[in-house]
């Protein structure tokens, strides 16, 4: 990460604009690896400003997958905080701007949930999930909505 992903200009820009970055050496005497159960590196965790965890992923990712993961993490955090409008906007960014990224199908799944939660309109949920089935037919997130009729 330190030699490929973090020096990338787009990654640096994204992190600087959206996060307070905190880096912890798991071999140091910090209590954070234990507190956040970091058993492998790299472990990337998104926390709110109180230190509550909302999203994590493991392992190296190149910039073109790392940025979509972070964008997804922001949307997923908003969803869990029940800020459905913000969640919808963040997740829509993933499916529109990073359509080919590996996290896009999951983002499309949760985008449907965010839109449904915001509107209570079940059609918005079903339409988002139909799009998921159509755009990513072989993905596991499409299988999770395979019961939805076309």
């Amino acid at each position, binding site marked *: 990460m330190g030699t490929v992903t973090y020096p990338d200009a787009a990654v640096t820009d994204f992190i600087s604009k959206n996060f307070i970055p905190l880096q912890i050496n798991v071999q140091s005497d910090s209590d954070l690896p234990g507190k956040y159960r970091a058993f492998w590196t790299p472990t*990337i965790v998104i926390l709110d*400003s109180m230190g509550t965890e909302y999203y994590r992923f493991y392992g190296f990712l190149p910039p073109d997958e790392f940025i979509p993961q972070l964008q997804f993490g922001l949307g997923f955090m908003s969803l869990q905080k029940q800020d459905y409008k913000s969640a919808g906007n963040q997740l829509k960014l993933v499916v529109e701007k990073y359509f080919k990224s590996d996290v896009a199908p999951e983002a499309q799944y949760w985008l449907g949930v965010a839109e449904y939660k915001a509107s209570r309109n079940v059609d918005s949920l079903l339409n988002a999930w139909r799009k998921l089935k159509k755009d990513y037919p072989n993905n596991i997130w499409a299988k999770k909505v395979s019961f939805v009729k076309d």
Partner: protein
Amino acid sequence: MLKYVLPCLILLVAPLAVTLAADTKNTPPAIVWEKTFDDAVTKAKKAGNPILLDFFAPT
């Protein structure tokens, strides 16, 4: 002697200096990582931004 050496030195050093200046100009600013949880939380609260926590092992 100096009269001949100085122009040669300038010819050698000037392109290098221009290259170094261009490299510096094109280098994106590095990520400024916080080193302690407390500092990160303080800044996150002030900025209203979440924290990106990266656990790493030195190679």
